[in-house]
């Protein structure tokens, strides 16, 4: 979906997202839908392009977006969230994407290219039709690997299976990832094993749990370990969506870890 939004396009930095209202002006759906930005272009004063997958999707809000036609108006807030942190020196970067989440990596690839970084892609999903951007990745990346669970495109397996090999082949210095939570978890684990910094965008978690995208509703919290070693519940929208992979407690997503700041047990049993 391409939206004309000069003010958003102008301020956008890779990794940021936008929050769309669905259902029109008098909608009964109050929650906003959060989507990563695929790319911004200077056309028509500035356009914002989003990628989402509604196949088999149960959310009628996304269904409403799919039904929009050219020149329809959509209420959008953005750009929101913190962008990917960029390396200061030209280094070798590995960009790992899964499903429509891979869309967020292409604007990042452009920016990294301008900084003379080498850009390697690894795209993963269940089957060939779900993989986003394999062609573009081959065109703009120094290398591009694809892995599908059913083997219909590229290697057979998951991103976690081939990641060690891809890291070694590409000589990556830093790993960026966006996609399903399981993929991010695997990427963070493998990157840590190789001693590489990883930056992951928890866009999918935000889509699943968030309601506003602006940090007000506090719905999209996840546990993060801070510099001081204390776990805090931070918001995926305003403290993320880009987070350090090694700081996220992937196994504790959807829970309040007992040792988190303000966790019920730390209070002595209240609630």
């Amino acid at each position, binding site marked *: 979906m391409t*939206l004309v*939004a000069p003010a958003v396009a102008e301020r956008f930095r890779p990794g940021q997202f936008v929050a769309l209202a669905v259902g029109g002006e008098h909608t009964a759906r109050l929650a906003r839908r959060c989507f990563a930005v695929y790319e911004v272009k200077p056309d028509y004063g500035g356009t914002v392009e989003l990628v989402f997958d509604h196949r088999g999707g149960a959310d009628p809000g996304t269904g409403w977006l799919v039904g929009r036609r050219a020149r329809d108006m959509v209420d959008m807030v953005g750009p929101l969230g913190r962008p990917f942190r960029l390396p200061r020196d030209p280094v070798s970067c590995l960009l790992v994407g899964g499903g429509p989440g891979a869309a967020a990596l292409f604007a990042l690839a452009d920016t990294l290219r301008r900084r003379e970084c080498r850009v390697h892609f690894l795209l993963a999903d269940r089957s060939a039709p779900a993989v986003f951007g394999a062609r573009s990745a081959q065109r703009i990346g120094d290398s591009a690997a694809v892995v599908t669970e059913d083997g219909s495109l590229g290697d057979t397996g998951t991103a976690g299976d081939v990641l060690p090999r891809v890291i070694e082949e590409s000589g990556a210095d830093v790993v960026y990832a966006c996609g399903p939570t399981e993929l991010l978890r695997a990427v963070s684990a493998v990157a840590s094993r190789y001693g590489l910094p990883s930056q992951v965008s928890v866009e999918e978690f935000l889509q699943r*749990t968030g*309601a506003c995208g602006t940090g007000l509703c*506090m719905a999209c919290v996840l546990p993060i370990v801070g510099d001081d070693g204390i776990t805090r519940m931070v918001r995926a929208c305003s403290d993320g969506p880009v987070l350090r992979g090694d700081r996220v407690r992937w196994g504790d997503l959807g829970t309040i870890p007992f040792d988190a700041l303000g966790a*019920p047990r730390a209070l002595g049993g209240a609630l």
Partner: protein
Amino acid sequence: MRTRLGALELTNPVMTAAGCGGTGRELARFFDLTKLGAFVTTSVMTQPRAGRPTPRVTETPSGLLTAMGLPGPGIDSFLERDLPFLAEQDVPVIVSVAGNSLEEYAEVARRLYDAPSVAAVEVNLAAPNVEDRGRMFGRLPGPAADVVRAVRVATRRDVPVLAKLAPDVGDLVTVALACVDSGADGLSLINTMAGSAIDADTMRPALTGVSGGLSGPAIRPVAVRCVYEVHAALPGTPIVGIGGVATGLDALEFVLAGACAVAVGSALFHDPTAAPRILRELEEALSVRRIAALADAVGLAHKPTGYVPPQIGPAPAGAGERARERPEEPKEKP
């Protein structure tokens, strides 16, 4: 469009609802906080709280169902980080206080005593009473009155105390009366209503907390009923109308029912600039109806048919047309 909540005078009647304006920093990116009549904070408790696990919000028809578990930074961090920021914004700050016991409420109120920038204290009576099997304080007149009294005693005399009540009680007017008798200078009506949603795909409750608080336009009729009933019983008590305020006409509805201010809650999640827009629309709605002061409109719905409120001069020619022609504030729209 000035209004009063007891001793507190506000430049306008549109405030944020507790828990819906974040720390203020999030909203300040979208509009100047001085455009608010007052900023109401997230409920502050003695200790930091992480709240409940996700999913803690789910969408329902014209509403949101939330089971947050009162997440918050705790009073220490609030005084250190959040309150100084809000004080700099030059907006009256109404601090929402909550606790698991009477002592905790009083403790938070005591800690706020010396903070110079607190314009009023709002007592969140929907917090779970640990000593009463986790049922909320505001459920019965007795416990509600005890909490309000404890906070009133611990708060400076010139700082108004507002009692925020939930509608899920046997007799709201009795609870409201008990709160006012024990020292509440005003009432905030209403908090969220209890509700549940089941996810048809997972066949399990949609929220970790199973039941949550329903907010948004879905509960507006309930909120208007509560404001109307309580204003009829206590016409002299200032009421803040809360519950699904999304437009200026929604706000006017609350004012006519008896509220002298309104608070915007879940509308901020949908449209972060909702508060200044609602104020603009409310001003317009009053001028179209030739009502000069907000106070003249408060509780008008209680007056007999045919009653004419004090009006400003001759009807502004084509006021309706002018209102329609006024361009919308530029928003980031594609």
